[in-house]
């Protein structure tokens, strides 16, 4: 833990003169200073800590967890201690095992997502841009969407076996629908007045699509991408429980066999970090592609 900053009022300033003494002589009404800003007010966590203050509670929780584990209050068979998890993580990293399984998992998500984009974007464009396309595509996809895609696992296993194909197909299925739906909705949601203005200024149909429909649909489509990434991870977790021989899911399943709760928790942590990273990636894309939006400009 870092030492409290020097300006902390409970610590006398060098020279034996505490900040309190200033107030005594200079201020006639102690109550006149606004409470929230009064430097004399005792603070458990000084403002100086700023953003770091948000991490106080999680850090304390982890410390309590560690203490409870050491005191034998929590069975390490059921829940490994934070120190054990850190050790396990370090060993997995050092041996290169984590990197290997991570690469396998990432590859599944990347291929699955690419397939999802490859199907969902053309279908979304087709349905969004033409009534005929909507009639041909939308009803079918809406029906398929009503099916919980994870329930397709038995069928996928029969069709594709228990190898990589099933895992990738599951990721692709999970990610495709959010992309399709938001692209379709985004295209249909473009302000008709903007389209009319485009026509007045001489844009052809192709020009309208390129200059108005696609930029107009982009914000929603990116929300869809973000959502698709979330579903992709979820599908990955499920897919990797099916007879996997590599991947983060395999790491977790394998650890279960040996009651290694520390490795299981490392796996969960990796899943969480991957999800977080994917979200940040799309945020970054949004920030770059949607610089014109006031909400994005307002963010830092």
């Amino acid at each position: 833990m870092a030492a409290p900053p020097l300006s902390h009022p409970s610590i006398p300033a060098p020279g034996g003169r505490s900040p309190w003494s200033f107030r005594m002589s200079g201020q006639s009404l102690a109550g006149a200073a606004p409470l929230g800003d009064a430097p004399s007010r005792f603070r458990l966590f000084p403002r100086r800590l700023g953003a770091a203050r948000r991490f106080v509670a999680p850090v304390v929780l982890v410390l309590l967890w560690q203490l409870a584990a050491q005191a034998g209050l929590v069975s390490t068979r059921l829940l490994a201690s934070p120190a054990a998890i850190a050790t396990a993580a370090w060993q997995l990293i050092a041996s290169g095992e984590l990197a290997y399984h991570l690469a396998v998992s990432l590859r599944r998500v990347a291929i699955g997502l690419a397939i999802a984009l490859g199907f969902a974007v053309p279908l979304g464009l087709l349905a969004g841009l033409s009534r005929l396309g909507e009639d041909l595509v939308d009803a079918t996809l809406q029906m398929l969407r009503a099916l919980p895609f994870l329930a397709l696992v038995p069928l996928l296993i029969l069709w594709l076996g228990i190898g990589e194909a099933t895992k990738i197909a599951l990721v692709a299925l999970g990610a495709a629908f959010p992309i399709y739906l938001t692209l379709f909705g985004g295209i249909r949601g473009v302000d008709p007045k903007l389209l009319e203005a485009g026509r007045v200024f001489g844009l052809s149909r192709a020009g309208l699509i390129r200059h108005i429909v696609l930029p107009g649909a982009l914000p929603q489509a990116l929300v869809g991408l973000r959502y698709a990434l979330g579903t992709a991870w979820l599908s990955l977790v499920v897919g990797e429980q099916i007879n996997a021989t590599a991947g983060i899911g395999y790491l977790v399943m394998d650890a279960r066999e040996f009651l290694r709760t520390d490795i299981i928790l490392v796996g969960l942590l990796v899943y969480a970090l991957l999800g977080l990273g994917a979200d940040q990636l799309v945020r970054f894309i949004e920030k770059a592609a949607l610089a014109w939006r006031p909400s994005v400009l307002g963010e830092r």
Partner: protein
Amino acid sequence: MVSGARLEVRGVSHAFALEKRALPVLQDIDFVAQPGEFVALLGPSGCGKSTLLRLVAGLEAPSEGRLLVDGAPVTGTDPSRTIMFQDPTLFPWRTVRGNAQLGPEARGTLAADAPRIEQALSLVGLASFAEAFPHQLSGGMAQRAALARALVNQPRLLMLDEPLGKLDSLTRLAMQRELAALWERERFTALLVTHDVEEAVLLADRVLVLSDRPARICADIRVDRPRPRRRDDAGLVALREEILALLGLAEAA
């Protein structure tokens, strides 16, 4: 300099299909706007004035009648017939300059029109805001940007669909003066839809007073006052009273 277009509106009637019933909005509209003439269409709100502009712009085809620009029938939109809408309808993902250059971009004349784009932006006083996005502009600035976007196309017929309707009254007064000056310099044919009588008589050579829906032309009033006009011009004030009386809104003496 580009001269104004001659607009002929011949026996135009139009109806909307509303739940399988035809809702007539325009009835036998017939007038000619001479090249360079400033015509105001004045009428109660919802009477179909804006619909008439949409027909002239080529966004819709009339149910009946003919629209001719310089003798040629209107079959679709054309950049030489440009509308400035009540809302600026700027493209939010384009900067002010990006919005202004949409027309030239669509026609593939961006390089040739580059000086005109800068000229239009400085004409409306937005040269220093060329890189701003629409959400960063005030209402008046957004309308100016929309005006610049229209002017870049060197319209021969500029349609103004209550372009100042949503502005605050001070901005509105300033922009009325700017529009008048602009028209005097460029001499395009102008078709202004408004429900502001003062605005109509201040800007137009001719005021067509429309009835309630379905709109018919119930008066064609010539505004023969010298320009630049003053709001307190006695002739304009008298005309204003006359038109208000036609609309059944005369101030009781």
